[in-house]
């Protein structure tokens, strides 16, 4: 329990009111940030000597389909020092969703952000190499968006020509 209090105190010290929402569902600490605060807060979390969130374990997104802020970018970061992880959420608008890339803070976020871009079409600004991860480069759809059918779209990936 203490590390969550420590974390919230530290973040409040860093900038008053930076944590828009804090949830603790099933003992998973999760904070919601405004998009413009993402990079400063991540840099702080990584470099603060009491926290040291050195590893970015995962980056993904959630498509809420019907909400006003349609997408939420989700980051899981881990601290060896506290032996615990933290989830950071950033709500993004539905039209041309974009958010600053955290690759400047955690190099390892590179592929995770590429995967999220591939699957949700979220643009990570400042990413060094934002190509698709799994799908072919010219694929027009974003498969994990809710409007994409589970069965796929026939003909969206043409077979190579025989000659």
């Amino acid at each position, binding site marked *: 329990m203490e590390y969550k209090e420590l974390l919230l105190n530290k973040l409040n010290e860093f900038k008053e009111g930076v944590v828009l929402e804090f*949830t603790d*569902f*099933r003992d*998973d600490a*999760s904070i919601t940030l405004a998009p413009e605060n993402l990079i400063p807060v991540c840099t702080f979390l990584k470099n603060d000597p009491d926290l040291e969130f*050195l*590893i*970015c*374990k*995962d980056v*993904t997104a*959630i*498509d809420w389909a019907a909400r006003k802020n349609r997408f939420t970018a*989700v980051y*899981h970061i881990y601290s*060896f020092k506290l*032996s*615990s*992880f933290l*989830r950071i959420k950033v709500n993004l608008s539905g039209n041309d969703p974009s958010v600053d890339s955290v690759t400047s803070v*955690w*190099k*390892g*976020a*590179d*592929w*995770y952000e590429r*995967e999220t871009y591939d*699957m949700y079409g979220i643009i990570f600004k400042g990413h060094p*190499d934002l*190509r*698709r*991860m*799994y*799908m*072919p*480069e*010219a*694929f*027009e759809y974003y*498969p*994990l968006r809710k409007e*994409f059918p*589970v069965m*796929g779209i026939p003909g969206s*990936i*043409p077979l*190579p020509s025989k000659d």
Partner: protein
Amino acid sequence: MIDVHNDEKLLKVLLKDDPDITIEDALDNEMVINMGPQHPATHGVLRLVLRLDGETVVNTVPELGYLHRGYEKMAEAMSFNEFIPHTDRLDYTSTMSNNVAYALAVEKLLGIEAPKRAQYIRMIIAEISRIMGHLVAIGTFAMDVGAVTMVLWTFREREKIQNIYDRVAGARFTTSYTRIGGVASDFDDVAVKMTKEFLDEFDHTMDDFEKLLNTNKIFIGRLEGIGVLTKEDAIAFGVTGPNLRASGVQYDIRRANPYLYYSDMDFNVPVFTEGDCLARYFVRVDEVRESIKILRQLLDKIPQGEIIANLPKKVLPHKAEIYSRMEKLIHDFMIVNFGVNPPVGDTYFSVENPKGELGFYFVSNGSGHPWKLKIRSPSFCNLQALPKMCNGQMISDVIAIIGSIDPVMGEADK
């Protein structure tokens, strides 16, 4: 018609250190070769585009997605129980530990816990499958660098483990053994005896393995000092599992955030500081030894009791009961048709798999299907460090490095 087979952007990344160069200029004195996806040493369908100067690798660009089956999309259209067989197909060298990870992740979301005997059975099968995964890793790795005997020996031992799987799960390979709230069938006395016999023999077999490889001058020579990943780089790239521990970071989820009953177990976390291919091999060998140690403790301590939780609204009833009792039939009908309906919220749960940290991130909106499932697969994250290890090495070392990372593409491509 869109051109999906265009590699223009990929080549740009390959040449990114000199922005002025074109591919034709580069080809004057360098070579761009395509390794994979159909290459025996890439452990599946990993494609690497290598830029070579003579025999030295200048740049490496991995391309994934040849085995992308869209499991995360499929999970959104399935109930929580239906997805269990798909977890077999993630890391197919150690199917049981994926089953365990998934069941535990769903149980965390539901807020339920399996009975103690079921948890012990899960630990046993997770450790057996760790041995199984490492056997494949060591065997194919040794084969890739020329010691072909090893793969035959390790697969012979793997067969014996699959016999144990056959006994407890009824399948040798795609086990789908765990259920939400417990396990499918009991780990009975015959299985315990089989496992004990296997372990007694296996101790000596491991000695033989080590005798064969650790004194093999070619094997050591091809691995020592190759593909060094420093501690800082390993952490920065998010590498986990044996690859991280070979770089000198003592991080094992079984120790750092104990799940199941790992806090009651006596075992060491092997750590090497060299960070080269040889260290990654040694970590795996030592981990197999530690798993044997854990298994012996588990088999002695396994408690009696139920193997599946008695929570009719959340846990599927046994098939025999469905045919004989009305209320079980109703519960079965409700769970199969409407799902287990976890509360609204999101959870992340991860376990230490043979390849590294396997995590499941669920977002639930209260219905029977997950609103979102994200699989944090260790092979995917470990492969990210591949260019860092390969650049500056010889082309023949690339094969050794891939083998030492031990990626499974079923998991990396999801």
